[in-house]
């Protein structure tokens, strides 16, 4: 069954669990395996955390979650209107983090890439970042 959803949430830490639960609940109608659901949950958690921790460091804002299912393929977009990423290529590298004094692992994009089938990151400095990920729900 083809389907679509859209959710706008405030970019705050307590919404991370809500965001990943909503997207995984959206997928269950297609009967994905538990592992697939958990992969999606983890990837959403990473993307939303990035927006909160890195995108909205200087001001508050919203995160938009858009998802579609078409022919058993989930496409999910996590959109923020935060500071943006200066160099997407570098940011996608393993263990890369701008939070040198924090305890970030620098693995967010690495996990999104390996848990999902595809990952695309578009970013405009000062305007925000859109992360698009796809995953086949039944392999």
């Amino acid at each position: 069954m083809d389907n679509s959803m859209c959710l706008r949430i405030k970019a705050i830490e307590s919404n991370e669990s809500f965001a990943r639960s909503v997207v995984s609940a959206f997928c269950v109608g297609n009967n994905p395996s538990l592992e697939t659901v958990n992969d999606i949950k983890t990837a959403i958690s990473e993307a939303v955390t990035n927006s909160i921790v890195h995108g909205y460091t200087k001001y508050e804002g919203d995160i938009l979650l858009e998802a579609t299912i078409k022919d058993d393929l989930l496409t999910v977009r996590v959109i923020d209107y935060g500071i943006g990423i200066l160099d997407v290529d570098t940011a996608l590298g393993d263990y890369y983090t701008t939070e040198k004094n924090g305890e970030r692992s620098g693995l967010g994009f690495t996990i999104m890439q390996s848990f999902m089938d595809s990952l695309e990151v578009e970013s405009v400095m000062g305007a925000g970042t859109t992360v698009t990920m796809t995953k086949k729900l039944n392999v």
Partner: protein
Amino acid sequence: MIVSTTKNNNNICINLEGELDQSVASKLRTQLDDYLLNTQAKNVIFNLDKLKFMDSTGIGLIMGRYKKLNAKKIAVFITNPNKQIDKVLTISGIYKIIPKI
């Protein structure tokens, strides 16, 4: 997130329960650092038996505690991760530094 500890002989077991993400990391970090500050233990074991979900925030948190404990020559281990958490831990390469037992 619920955290409890069990101690026997030279081992401290940190039992994490619930979901570990950015929303609980800062409080958990402070709780663990306070608890481990003056520890005389030789081994610290993160027991993830009741942890339902963890993202890369957990990697940063465990690595942060490892660095502090390693400086005091205390060994750190991870035990009982579920499949989702094991996958995150494996991709991170953390098991090369903090063995799974």
